[in-house]
Structures are given as structure tokens and as C-alpha cells.
């Protein structure tokens, strides 16, 4: 059995704060659409562009697994656990907010914008001890997916408090691959970073999202493309 939903890029909620331009795949902040609350435990997928020298000042988080993936430029991160780090393109950051933390995120560059994905997953356990992790991701080899997140501390990528796996890959035009789920009870939310692709015969364009519940995915790149797959539990 296969169920799917497609969120075309242009149908996302948009928040333009001048210094911050954000496209929300799911309800966030003042964008509220009861039909777009979550895909399983995936609750937030924000496609953010922050002006040079600007960013998010000190603010709190709790009980959420928060993943940041820079797409262009670098972010400066500071938090109440004493972590100070620069997150660069080619890295992924995961933060378990748990019982509560404060953090800030700023564009490291004074003039050029930084573009990054901010992804929030409901945790599989409330009130965990806050933690922070950041690793480099190597997606240089084309036409395969590279795991960048999992539930396991000793596995590739960062780990989080959730039965979720993220994979990223760059594909040449005409390339075809399949994705087998780690857990058959999960679903997959695919987000097209660039290019045109089909997933299980459904056509997708840049910044389109597709949530799918199926045993496996067949992915074909119609043009050169970059794809993020987020395999997540469907029960919150």
C-alpha cells in the first residue's frame, strides 16, 4: 500500500521579516494551516535565508529534536550549555532541547546571506538532558544517498532521540536509485533541494516536498538534483 502527499514549493507558508525570509512546509509561527501540521514526527521544515550579519538572538527551546543544515554560508551557534561553534555548508547540527536550553544563531558573514534548513522532530521521550552534536557530512560521491542522521550514536551522521534516519544525495541527470526504509513502520518526507526528480512516478521540482508511506522509494533524477530524505515514525 502506498499513500503520499505533495507540498509544492509555492504552497508553503512564507514569513518575510526583512532580515529573515522563511518558507514553512508546516505550520509555524504566525502561519497556521490545520492541514499542514506535521508529517509523522516531522513537525517543522523551515527553509531560511538570513541577511548578512543578522540572526536569531538568544531564545529558548524545549522538548524538540532540532536539526540545522546549512545550504549556503556559515552559521555561528552559541548555547546555554557552553557550546560555541560555526556550522558550515557540508555539516549538520543536531540539538536535543529536552528540559530546556537557550541558544542563538547568526550569519557569520557580514554581508552575504546564509541559507539553511531548520528541521524539528518530536522526540521519542520528553524531558531528556539537553545535548548538542555537529558533524561533517560527505556527500561528494554522486548518485547514492549518504546517511547524515540516525537514532544511533555509533552510526553515520548525528544522532537524535527519535527513530529517524536522514539521507542526502546529489544525482546526475538520468540517475536512478532506490531507498529502502530502515523501519517499515516509518514514512519518508522527501525535500528536493535542487533539480527535477520523480519519486515513485510523482514529479517534483526544487523545494517541493513529498511525504510518502511505502515499502520502498524509486527515485529518478530528470536533471542534476540534490535530495534530502527524512525517514520518520508516523505516530507522534
Amino acid at each position, binding site marked *: 500500500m502506498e499513500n503520499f502527499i505533495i507540498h509544492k514549493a509555492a504552497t508553503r507558508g512564507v514569513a518575510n521579516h526583512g532580515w529573515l525570509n522563511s518558507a514553512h512546509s508546516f*505550520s*509555524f*509561527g*504566525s502561519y*497556521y494551516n*490545520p492541514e499542514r*501540521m506535521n508529517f509523522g514526527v516531522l*513537525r*517543522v521544515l523551515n527553509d531560511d535565508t538570513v541577511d548578512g550579519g543578522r540572526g536569531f538572538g538568544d*531564545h*529558548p*527551546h*524545549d*522538548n*524538540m529534536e532540532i536539526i540545522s543544515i546549512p545550504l549556503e554560508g556559515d552559521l555561528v551557534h552559541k548555547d546555554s550549555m557552553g557550546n560555541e561553534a560555526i556550522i558550515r555548508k557540508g555539516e549538520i547540527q543536531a540539538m536535543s*532541547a*529536552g*528540559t*530546556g536550553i*537557550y541558544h542563538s544563531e547568526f550569519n557569520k558573514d557580514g554581508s552575504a546571506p546564509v541559507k539553511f534548513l531548520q528541521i*524539528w522532530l*518530536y522526540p521519542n521521550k*520528553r*524531558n531528556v538532558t539537553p545535548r548538542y552534536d555537529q558533524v561533517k557530512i560527505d556527500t561528494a560521491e554522486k548518485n547514492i544517498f549518504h546517511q547524515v542522521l540516525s537514532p544511533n550514536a555509533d552510526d553515520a551522521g548525528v544522532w537524535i532521540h527519535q527513530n529517524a534516519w536522514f539521507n542526502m544525495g546529489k544525482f546526475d541527470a538520468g540517475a536512478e536509485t532506490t531507498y529502502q526504509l530502515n523501519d517499515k513502520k516509518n514514512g519518508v518526507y522527501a525535500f528536493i533541494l535542487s533539480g527535477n526528480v520523480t519519486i515513485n512516478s510523482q514529479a517534483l521540482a526544487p523545494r517541493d516536498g513529498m511525504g510518502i508511506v511505502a515499502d520502498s522509494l524509486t527515485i529518478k533524477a530528470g536533471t542534476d538534483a540534490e535530495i534530502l530524505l527524512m525517514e520518520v515514525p508516523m505516530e507522534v
Partner: protein
Amino acid sequence: MKKIEILAICTHEGILQTINRLINNNELWNSTGAIDMQSATELLVNKDFDLILIGSGLAVADEYKLETVLAAHKNIPVVKHYGGGSGLLFGEIYQALTGK
């Protein structure tokens, strides 16, 4: 117009203040904060609320008690708050109040 009365419970004082401030920015809502289960219980006995928002830090048993005993007895919707800030707060409240 009567405001929607919300009881926000969170053991992290800074986050509780943030939640109260964000909720009270909506002129139709009024948030009362409780820093622990004892304060929450006293408030529930002495004041009528339209919604209970459970933030971080409560023991599992206390969350269960709030959801199944106190709220059920008073027929008050209970929503678990995630995220600690404005990102999800309004959606959680709208969803709980409208049932959507």
C-alpha cells in the same frame, strides 16, 4: 469579551516567562504560569481555565495526572507544548481550541 484562560506549566522559569509573554501578546488570551505541580494543582482548584499547556520538566506521572485526572474531571483540554517558544505555541493552542 472574556479572555481564554490558559494555565501554562513549566519547571524552567525562563521558558515559562517566555511562554506567558508570548501567550499574553494575544489580547484574547490570558496565561497564568505554574512552576511546578503543586502550584498547578492549587491554581486548578481555585481558578477556572479553558486550556492547560504542559511545558517541560514535569515528571511523567505528573503529566499523566494532569491529562487523565484533573483535566478529565474539569473537562479541560490539555496540550503538551513542544519547542519552548513561539514557533509551535500558537498552532498548538489554535489546534486545541478548535479541535482541528
